[in-house]
């Protein structure tokens, strides 16, 4: 038996300007596509968010967008598509359901009213994370839940929505983070923690506008970058967690004079 190998040299052509190396064959047809990363904001716009909280949230997300763009510029193969779900008495698309390319995404002003239908928002999210609605070879989605209160849907409905996310492949693989706003007695920390799947991060607790801005920026940028790395790995039968790991969030040093 014999192994025959040789190196094929580049095509060299000459023109009047001198010798150049060029491709003489047109590149094959076919529209190339970058890998999609689907990003979901889930924003509480219940009545308790009125005033400083919603104003800070609106401004912080707007300020986070260019920072995400800047951070993922190192991953030009990634095409971030963003959507937003708002929830109060019910859950609805704030931006969507069609995903918007990051560089075209605009955050419309969010108004407050009503209750806190977090479970309905999670179900709306789960419906978008199905195999049929997501690109099979996409990057892990990023889902950031921001809320200041207790879910007013029945707890069974909330738990079922969390369980649904835990059953669908993209729900499992997604980077799921939650930011709680205000005093810890005002929101249900264990409930929000159930949504998250990053042990090193846990529940991000924003006591002040300054912390909310910092956490929205940190969470959105860190999750986008971590998901963009998108390195393949072998399946392991016993493992049903996100294959993206985030570092611990930064320590917040904030003044106590401007709490929510």
């Amino acid at each position, binding site marked *: *038996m*014999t*192994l*025959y*190998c*040789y*190196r*094929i*040299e*580049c*095509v060299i052509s000459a023109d009047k300007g001198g010798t150049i190396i060029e*491709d*003489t*064959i*047109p*590149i*094959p*047809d*076919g*529209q*190339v*596509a*970058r*890998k999609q990363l689907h990003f979901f904001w889930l924003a509480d716009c219940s009545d308790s968010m009125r005033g400083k909280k919603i104003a800070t949230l609106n401004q912080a997300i707007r300020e986070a967008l260019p920072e995400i763009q800047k951070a993922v510029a*190192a*991953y*030009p*193969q*990634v095409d971030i598509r963003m959507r937003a779900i708002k929830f109060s008495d019910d859950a609805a698309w704030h931006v969507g359901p069609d995903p918007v390319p990051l560089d075209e995404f605009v955050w419309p002003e969010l108004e407050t009213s009503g209750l806190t239908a977090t479970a309905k928002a999670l179900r709306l999210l789960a419906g978008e994370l199905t*195999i049929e609605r*997501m*690109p*099979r*070879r*996409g*990057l*892990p989605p990023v889902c950031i839940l921001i809320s200041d209160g207790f879910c007013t849907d029945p707890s069974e409905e909330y738990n079922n929505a969390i369980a649904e996310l835990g059953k669908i*492949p*993209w729900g499992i*693989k997604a980077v799921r983070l939650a930011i709680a706003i205000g005093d810890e007695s005002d929101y249900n920390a264990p409930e929000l923690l159930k949504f998250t799947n990053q042990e090193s991060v846990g529940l991000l607790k924003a006591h002040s506008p300054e912390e909310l801005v910092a956490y929205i920026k940190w969470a959105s940028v860190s999750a986008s970058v971590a998901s963009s790395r*998108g*390195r*393949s*790995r*072998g*399946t*392991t*039968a016993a493992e049903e967690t996100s*294959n993206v790991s985030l570092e611990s969030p930064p320590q917040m040093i904030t003044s106590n004079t401007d709490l929510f």
Partner: protein
Amino acid sequence: MPSPEEFSCTCDTGLGWVFGCSRTGASHIRAGRPCEDAYALWSGSSGAQPCIAFAVADGHGDPRHDQSRTGAALAVDAAITELVAFHRSYADGNIPRQQFRAGFKTDLPRRATRRWRELVVQDAGRRTLPPAPVPQADVQDQNFTRYGTTLIAALVVNDSILLGQIGDGDLVLVRPDGSIEFPLPRDPVPAGNETHSLSSPDAHLLWRTATLDRGKGGILLAATDGISDSFNGAESEEFSIFVHSLVDRIHTYGTEAVAAAMAGWLDRYSSVASGDDMTLVWACITPEEIRPDVPEPVPDVPASAWEGW
């Protein structure tokens, strides 16, 4: 083991030609990471029976698979060794075709997986590896994980094309009439960057295999997933357009010219699309010859259609 940056090509055994090209992904270059793909080509004969064998592997990029570059190289080595040994064991025995094909489906997954594991154990014993990024209780299982990789293996013989695959990547056969066949079902892992792996404890059960008639031949492509990902996946219409167009380029410009251009094309796809390492092996398989002792239908493709292959 040839450098993955080189083109290579096996000679014409009467079955056809096979070319390969592997390029470091744009995202790997930016991050200072090496190419984690590997491929190997082989042609020769046993008992006067020619064969072409080739293999493509894609080492997992996740940090827990920190030796996957070596794992991929060992995988193509293991595949070629087993494909050639398999061919030899049958070529000398005048085994009926159906038995030959059934033997491939039964034996290749087990033999190639076992060979890869032996090579991993040898390599891990020979080198001093850095501490494992994700320690496991069983050191041997930990090493298999660290070397984790996918693998595509193909064997072309007189009357058959035999294919095996574990994990992602694509095998596509374009027949002379332009029809595209995906001989293997896709990797059943449903979402994201996960894939079946040689490092899985039950790896030999995770292979997909197929046996085809060589018939009128065609162009058989084996590619790591970086290429189909650049066209939104192998199921997309754009990937089919790319495959048809590539085959058209081969017919129009000839295989050597396409081989010379391939590195630039793959670099471009990686830089503007998936960013991943890219490896493509393509075999130009000539039509099966009619032998008096084999009652096969006469190929109706004119010989001129294959000139230049």
